[in-house]
Structures are given as structure tokens and as C-alpha cells.
């Protein structure tokens, strides 16, 4: 695998993705809307319930930050499905595979193209959220809450691992499906368990503390390893040319 080849593939996919309005809006609107609206909810809660304890407000802020996990688990599919199914439909993988580039470089390039913009968008939105939420929660907490150690675990371990998991699942789905919408719908199912965890956190039945987030990270990283192995098996010259499509 050559890093420069992977980057060449990634930059081509990024350029193609950026020309699609749907992807641009998807990457921009959902994270930034969340970044702007969640602090407003914090303001509403703080002004309506001045009796809330600081611990309850901190729990609320942690669960709101976890909301961005939904974005990070769904947004890579928008790019990855075009990068994979799009190439499958256009039959453009064969000319690329006929160059000396390794299949590993192509695969890593496609992963970079889907994961990097997602993380940039979500991290930017999370940063905006944290700044605004610190300000809105200050009347009760008396200080800014973010960032905590647990925040870094979520941003730097759990989010990239979840984005990678989504891309790996996209690759597996792409091998069996021939249209972008179907791929997005199937791969979109990964959002369900993440949403479930978010709801559980909101209902207070799941504490998003360091132990839980590290545990989640280990589980998602383990899924990454398994799905990456499976994706590598599916994303093979022979497999693509004789079985895909």
C-alpha cells in the first residue's frame, strides 16, 4: 500500500463528492444545525429549570455531545456510497484496477475520502456546540464544562472508530447492492444502535462516563477490525471484476 496512491484516490473522490450538492448540504447542514440548536435547548432548560443540579446539567451536556455520534455514524455513507456504488454503476473501477495501484491503496483512499470530511464537519460542529453550551450552562455550573477528558475520548477515539465502522459496512453493502439509495438505506441502519444509546443516555439509563465511553470505544474498534477484514476480502480485484454488479 502506498500512501501517495491512497491520497490520489481520496482526493479524486473528494473532488467528485464536493461537486454533489446533496453531499455538501449533508456535511454542512446536519452538524451545524445540531451545533446551533442544542445550545438553545441548554439555554431553555437552564432558564426554565434553575433548580437543576450542576451534575444534572453536566449529564445533559455529555448526552448532547453524544448526539454528534449520530452524525458521525451516518454522514460517511453519503460519500462512501457514491465513491463505491457510483464507481460500480459507472464501471470505473476496472480502469483504476488496471493501473499498478494496489487494491489496499484504493480501499484506504476511499476510506479517507469518506471519513476525513465527516470528521472535519462533525468536529467543527462539536467545537461550536461546546463553546456555545459552555456559555449557556455557565449560570448553573459557574464555569465552562467542556472539554473534559471524557470529551477527548469521544472526539478522538469513539467518533473516528464509528466513522470507520460505517465506511466498512458501506463497502460490504456495496458488494451486494447496485444503487446508491439502497446502499444508503442499508448502511443507514448503523445509526439505529447509536440513536438507541443516545436515547438511553437522555432517559438517564446510560451514564456517558469515562468507563462507558472507553468500553464503547473498545467494542467499536473490535467491530472495525472485523469489518475491515471482511471489507478487504470483498474489495479484491478478482471479486470486483467478476462478482460486483
Amino acid at each position: 500500500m502506498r500512501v501517495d496512491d491512497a491520497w490520489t484516490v481520496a482526493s479524486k473522490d473528494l473532488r467528485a463528492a464536493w461537486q454533489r450538492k446533496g453531499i455538501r448540504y449533508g456535511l454542512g447542514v446536519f452538524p451545524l444545525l445540531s451545533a446551533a440548536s442544542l445550545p438553545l435547548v441548554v439555554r431553555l432548560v437552564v432558564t426554565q429549570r434553575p433548580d437543576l443540579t450542576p451534575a444534572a446539567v453536566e449529564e445533559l451536556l455529555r448526552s448532547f455531545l453524544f448526539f454528534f455520534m449520530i452524525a458521525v455514524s451516518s454522514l460517511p455513507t453519503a460519500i462512501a456510497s457514491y465513491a463505491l456504488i457510483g464507481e460500480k454503476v459507472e464501471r470505473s473501477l476496472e480502469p483504476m484496477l488496471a493501473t499498478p495501484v494496489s487494491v489496499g491503496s484504493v480501499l484506504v483512499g476511499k476510506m479517507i475520502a469518506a471519513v476525513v470530511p465527516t470528521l472535519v464537519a462533525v468536529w467543527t460542529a462539536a467545537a461550536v456546540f461546546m463553546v456555545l453550551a459552555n456559555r449557556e450552562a455557565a449560570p448553573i455550573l459557574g464555569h465552562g464544562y467542556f472539554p473534559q477528558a471524557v470529551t477527548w475520548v469521544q472526539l478522538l477515539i469513539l467518533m473516528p472508530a464509528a466513522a470507520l465502522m460505517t465506511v466498512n459496512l458501506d463497502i460490504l453493502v456495496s458488494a451486494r447492492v447496485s444503487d446508491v439509495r439502497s446502499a444508503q438505506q442499508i448502511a443507514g441502519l448503523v445509526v439505529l444502535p447509536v440513536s438507541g444509546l443516545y436515547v438511553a443516555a437522555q432517559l438517564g439509563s446510560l451514564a456517558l462516563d469515562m468507563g462507558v465511553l472507553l468500553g464503547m470505544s473498545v467494542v467499536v474498534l473490535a467491530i472495525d477490525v472485523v469489518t475491515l477484514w471482511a471489507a478487504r476480502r470483498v474489495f479484491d480485484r478478482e471479486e470486483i471484476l467478476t462478482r460486483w454488479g
Partner: protein
Amino acid sequence: MIETQGLTRRFGSLLAVDDLTLTIPDGEVFGLLGPNGAGKTTTMRMIAGLIGITSGAAFVDGRDVADPRQADIVRAALGILPEENGLYSDLSPRQTLDFFARLHHVRDRRARVDGLLERLSLMDRADAAVSTLSKGMKQRLALARALINEPRLVLLDEPTANLDPAASLEVRELLLELRGRGCTVVVNTHRLEEAERTCDRIGILHTRLLRLLSPTEPHAEVIRVGVEDSTDAVRAAAQALSDRPVEATGTGLLVHLRVGAAVPDLVAALVDAGGRITQVAPERPTLESVYLEAIADAR
């Protein structure tokens, strides 16, 4: 040079290519003719090291394409045009060629890209989206992509499919230009006239290699003889030297000379039988007739 030895590929129970043994020397334009499903694309993909080989072997410049490392080296010196052009509709021709130049680690990318855009008359639309190009332009772009690494071996799968006559002519001229530069070119096609015009040799494939022909080689075995008053005796004399039933034509006979028989023997035999010869002309069987006969035999 391309060399295949007993090259065979199965897909489950389907035998796609069977025991193909072939040598294509450097600088030759070789046509693979065959109906859909004859194994042409599979053969090309095996030669390019893109898919595995069930049995037998394929070598390009002595490198075994079944060995992944050697296949990588083969692909670096190879240009391929798949049956479907496989272009990125969102990119421009310039971006497309630049992308493939990067994958091939071409030095002086810009000059190479501009040179090909110019050579294939795409410069005017170099920065337009591929989706807005005509079919002919797309095919020219796909050809330019196949040539971006200045390959010594070019594999073209149906290069003139869906092209109008003028665009087809341009492609044929390009093939001849490649041959002039010493490139080895393999062309998959089912356009007989295209194969005849551009190929040094032609292999008729229908899972197995049925015939190997050279369109430029003289075929003297079929003789059209003009005979006045063709009697039974004259026909019998002709039949004695023919390995197929002699066909009566409006002005004479069509004789498939037996191996070992020569035109003077035929003329002498006909004269001895009382025939008055007005014309003797060797008749080349057309590629179409050879092709159809080979395919019919295979079925």
C-alpha cells in the same frame, strides 16, 4: 511479447476460456474476434493480471501475470480500454487524465496530459464535465486514459463500439500510429471490417481459439475458373482436384484446391477434359466467411 500456454478460465461450471495457446510478438496489432460470451474480455483480463487463471499460464514480456508482483509490473507498462469506458462523469477530461497519470506516477504530468488532450482533439473540452461530452469524445478520452503511461502493450476491448464512422476511423488511425511506435496492441472486436483493416493477425475465439488468420496473407486455395461450355467432364476434372464440391457459377466454376494441387495442374486437367478456359483467378475467402464458418463449426 504476449505468450499464453493452455490458458483456461472457469467461472463455476462455466468454461469461459479453454486451453488458449497464443504468441503475440512485439509491435503486432492482434485482433481477437468472437461473438458475445466467447471469452474475449476474460482473456484480456487474464493477460492484464486482473483476474486469476484456472489453469495454464500467461506471460507478458516474460513476466508471469499469475504472480501478483509481476502482474503489478505488467500493469505499469500496460494501457487498457475496457468494453465500457468507465469514465468519471463528475470529472473533466483534464482531471481524469491527471488522476490516472498520478496513479501511474507519470513524470511531467501536465505535458503528458496536455499532449494527449491535443492528440485526441479534446483540448476544447478539456475542462468540461465528462457527462457533457459526446460518445465519440468519451471514447477518445478513454483511449487517452489508456495511453497516459506511454504503454508498450495496449489492450482494447471493443474500441469502436457505438462510434460513428468518422470517430471509428480516428480510432483505427490511432491503432496504426501505436503500431508504428512499436506498441503491441490486442483488440477485442466483433467488427470484422475493423479487424481486417487494422490487425496484423486475427484469432477467432469461441471459448477455444478456432482459427488464427493473417488478413494480409494471400489465400490462393480457392480458385475461380472461367470456363466456356462447362460440361460434366470438365466439372469431374475440377472435382478430382477439389477438396469440396465444385460450385458452378454463372461464368464457370469455383474450386477449392486440394492441398498439394497447384493452379497449373487444375488448368491442364480442365483443358484435357475439353474445357475452354477464359479466366483463372485466386479468390480470397472473406474474413466474414471464415469467421462464420469457424463459429458454425464450433457450435
